[in-house]
């Protein structure tokens, strides 16, 4: 069985939340009228902070973090090299977003002083297109980085990982926590249609995650090592805590949020975001803990 890989748990989950937020901002920016400037700035700052924390956390996994730059040297076959490259590119693309976020505030000031509304609208349109392009590039790079992260674990030695499972789990975490954090960050800055979409998206991610996990679990028993992973999961209280906090509670809360839009949603959204976040962290811990590799079955 594996170990508590805290640096990797933090790196993957925080990195996925950061990229999930940017992905959701990209969706909101698809139409120039949809993305609120304040939300853009808030989202960019939070996602950047999380991305920096994630990259720093990843260094603690290494025996020699001072030589981490060397991890870029084997792009031909190593998914770890590709992951590092793509995350660094994502960070560079985020710096561009941060620059745009800073310009956005000065842009607002200019428009207040301007007497010509038509010119302001054209400027605003160009700015939104530029934001959308920046968000799109960052999202694509980030999603490629997340897929590379997942591919690191697709190892023939570990039957529980040697399938499409890691890629799906990592992408679903990105979708779920990205949408929930955007909802939590957006608050009243989001329009009702946007809130509804993000809630529906979160519900879909949670449902698909649960469904895929059931299918994944049923497939594990095919090999001895996979069956050992499954037994570990089913006997672990952490797994049941993950199921409760990460699947069942968010499903109920999201359904209630969608059915009763008239109630004050702020606290419920924060609660569901927190629960899903804890659930995903436990899920990622179990991902590492339950990994059973093919090995020599000798006496000593």
């Amino acid at each position: 069985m594996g170990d508590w890989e805290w640096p990797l748990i933090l790196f993957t989950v925080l990195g996925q939340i950061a990229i999930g937020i940017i992905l959701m901002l990209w969706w909101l920016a698809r139409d120039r009228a949809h993305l609120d400037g304040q939300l853009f700035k808030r989202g960019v700052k939070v996602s950047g902070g999380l991305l920096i924390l994630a990259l720093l956390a990843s260094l603690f996994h290494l025996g020699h973090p001072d030589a981490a730059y060397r991890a870029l040297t084997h792009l031909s076959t190593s998914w770890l090299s590709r992951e590092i490259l793509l995350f660094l590119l994502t960070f560079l693309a985020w710096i561009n977003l941060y620059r745009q976020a800073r310009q956005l505030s000065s842009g607002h000031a200019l428009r207040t002083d301007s007497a010509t509304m038509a010119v302001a609208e054209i400027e605003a349109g160009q700015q939104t297109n530029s934001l959308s392009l920046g968000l799109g590039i960052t999202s694509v790079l980030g999603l490629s980085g997340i897929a590379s992260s997942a591919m690191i674990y697709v190892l023939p030695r570990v039957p529980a990982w040697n399938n499409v499972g890691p890629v799906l789990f990592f992408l679903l975490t990105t979708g779920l926590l990205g949408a929930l954090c955007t909802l939590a960050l957006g608050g009243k800055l989001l329009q009702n249609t946007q809130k509804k979409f993000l809630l529906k998206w979160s519900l879909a991610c949670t449902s698909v995650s649960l469904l895929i996990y059931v299918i994944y679990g049923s497939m594990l028993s095919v090999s001895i090592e996979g069956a050992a992973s499954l037994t570990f999961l089913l006997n672990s209280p952490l797994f049941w805590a993950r199921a409760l906090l990460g699947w069942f509670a968010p499903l109920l809360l999201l359904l209630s949020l969608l059915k009763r839009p008239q109630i004050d949603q702020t606290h419920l959204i924060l609660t569901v975001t927190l629960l899903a976040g804890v659930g995903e962290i436990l899920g990622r811990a179990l991902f590492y803990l339950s990994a059973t590799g093919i090995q020599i079955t000798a006496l000593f």
Partner: protein
Amino acid sequence: MSKQLGFLHNSEKCVGCRGCEMACKNEYQIDPIPQWRKVFQLREDDFSLPSRMFISMACNHCAHPECLRVCPVEAYTKRDDGIVVHDPERCIGCRLCTMACPYDRPQFNPAKKKVEKCNLCYQRIDQGEKPACVAACIPGALALVEITTSLDQKTGVLKTLPGLPSPQITTPSLRFVGPKQGKQIRRD
């Protein structure tokens, strides 16, 4: 790559004395925790009759090494003679190779915070000498061989033994002369 060097282990001759383990430790002054070479006792249940058999295993210098594929810093290289060499100077201690190897042969040294493994004494081989473990094996159970089709076609040469991972994962350069099963006589 013109050839593939590897080990031939004769499980019939091996007495489990661990002389090969000690020779390896002596040659490279390895810290206590990483074991570049390790002697395993095979499980009796895997054979039809009760047997006490050992295998000695170091890095298998696989034809398709997973360690080399996953390593992000190119710490692993494969020489023309098929030896998979690990360069500790390049290693950053990410431990991905330890996760990928089904034989658990690249091992993390917690003192140095780097991975280490057997390099098949390539310095000795280059000087025409035998690897330390092979030279130290008193019963002559361990031999350095070239892995060829003709070797695999010899009677009694096996690619794997019960209890070992499937050789299809990495195509290890390790062959066995399988243990002969003794006769069991029951006196009722």
